[in-house]
């Protein structure tokens, strides 16, 4: 992958005459490559970073906290992660990482059930068995979304299982519903189809849980030492995000070029199914790429409650630095 990356960068460097010595930036993903992680790959393949004289390398991560740790220890400069994980980390420890731009302006958490189960809304989950994975950030928000629907944790039977086993468990009837991110919807539909079943998606953002989620974060050292590089990166990244959701198929192919194991069509389907997390009422009202103080406060209220932290453990404004997005 690294080699492919270098070759493509080389090609774009030759193409652009202005590039002499590009600035190196290491981008941190919070998970493995997939549809929602496409923008950074698109930025490289479409030459958006090269236009800004940047040479970007990508490191995969294993969850939000893993990505945060790597940015905090300087192993990467900038990357994607859940902003509520950042807030929770900052409230407990002075983590030198800040959010610079929102990416998902709605939470990606959702319940999924088979159509044949008769479950069609969150209220129908009373007395049902629900499976979730042990380390997902969704678990912290579960009590909140249940409360919004007049349920408590005692009303459901929660079991934990490996993320890869969740959808099969639901399809085989081992569990009534599962908790997962809507980034997986396209995959779940395909799996259910294989067994001749249909699924129902119940996004938590539809039932009261409205907050910032996956965001672009950067290490404070990177912003202090190379502010001008950071500004150019964020500009190119924003351009790549827009391009990705306008051209899902091209984005899928771009990702496939750099990570050949990924199927371009699946990535395109994933991108289409999560467009609502990136472009929605919130972005329409506040403008793409802008954090608002009000929604930041709201996000922190949820994050604090979900993580059992006191509301005044953190001034949520300190977790954000919007000066770099112009």
């Amino acid at each position: 992958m690294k080699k492919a990356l270098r070759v493509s960068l080389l090609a774009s460097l030759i193409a652009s005459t202005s590039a002499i010595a590009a600035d190196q930036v290491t981008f941190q993903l919070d998970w493995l490559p997939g549809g929602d992680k496409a923008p950074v790959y698109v930025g490289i393949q479409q030459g958006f970073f090269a236009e800004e004289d940047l040479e970007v390398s990508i490191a995969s991560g294993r969850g939000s906290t893993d990505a945060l740790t790597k940015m905090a220890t300087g192993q990467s400069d900038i990357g994607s992660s859940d902003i509520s994980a950042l807030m929770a980390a900052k409230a407990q420890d002075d983590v030198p990482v800040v959010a610079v731009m929102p990416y998902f302006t709605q939470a990606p958490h959702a319940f999924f059930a088979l159509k044949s189960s008769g479950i069609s809304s969150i209220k129908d989950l009373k007395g049902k068995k629900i499976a979730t994975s042990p380390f997902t950030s969704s678990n912290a928000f579960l009590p909140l979304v249940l409360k919004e629907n007049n349920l408590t944790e005692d009303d459901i039977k929660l079991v934990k299982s490996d993320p890869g086993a969740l959808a099969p468990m639901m399809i085989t009837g081992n569990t009534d519903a599962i908790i997962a991110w809507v980034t997986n919807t396209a995959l779940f539909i395909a799996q259910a189809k294989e067994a001749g079943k249909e699924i129902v998606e119940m996004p938590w953002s539809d039932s009261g849980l409205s907050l910032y989620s996956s965001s672009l974060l950067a290490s404070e050292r990177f912003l202090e030492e190379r502010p001008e590089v950071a500004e150019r990166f964020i500009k190119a990244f924003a351009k790549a995000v827009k391009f990705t959701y306008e051209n899902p198929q091209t984005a899928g192919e771009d990702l496939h070029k750099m990570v050949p194991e990924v199927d371009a069509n699946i990535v395109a389907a994933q991108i289409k199914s999560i467009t609502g997390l990136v472009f929605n009422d919130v972005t329409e009202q506040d403008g793409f790429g802008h954090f608002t103080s009000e929604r930041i406060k709201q996000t922190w209220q949820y994050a604090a409650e979900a993580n059992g932290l006191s509301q005044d453990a953190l001034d949520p404004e300190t977790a954000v630095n919007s000066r770099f997005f112009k």
Partner: protein
Amino acid sequence: MNQTSQPKLWLAQQANRFAPALFFIGLVLLWELICRVGKVPNYILPSPSAIITAFFNVEFSRWMIHLWATLRVALMGFVLSIMIAIPLSIGMMRSQLMNRILYPALIVIQSTPVVAVAPLIIVLLGTDDPSRVLITCLITFFPLVVSTTTGMLETPPEMIELSQSLRAPRYRETWQIRIPYAIPHIFSGLRVSITLAIIGAVVAEFVAAEEGLGYFIQFSTSFFKIPQAFAGLIFLSVISLLLFKSVQWIQAWFFPWSLPKKK
């Protein structure tokens, strides 16, 4: 000998000779049959044919890239652990004090689950090879220390007495008597360690990696491509088996005398 029994005898001999392979083929066929008859979906248990298709759907060059990434880390970790384990065992065998100091520490290291420590090692040493090699080394070196030490301590006392009565220096006692006696033990340790080295490399890739067979398996599961994950898993087991065999070949080639006598 009568004419008719000869082909039968030949068949029986061949069946006996290829019994392990036949058993294996039978098992795979049974697996395929269960998947087809029971209509087991791929995401629960992929059939062998689906796994084979998935294997060939991935380009050969990709397999080689992932294989090399895993093999490189496994072998570096393995060599490093030999370089640490053997001198350590010699030291512990020679000095009671060193033994008393190091042995508890070794047990502590061995009983710490490396999977739990791996993320911390990555934070300390970064996401490149050094941390992966260290994780592999931590998993592999203990069996080597134990088997080497046991081997050297099992040297017949009369041989040691003889060498002492001839006033042989201690380094000769170690190199010419104890180590040769320990060779069969060292090799059984190496056989255990080499398979652990692959496990170590995979554990490291699960925590931080951009390529490698462990990463490939994790990646395939994240896309719910279960047949592809199985293909990676089987490829990994074949590599593990080949490495195990290589250690046996090295022993047979360089130290044929250390093998148990054939009947």
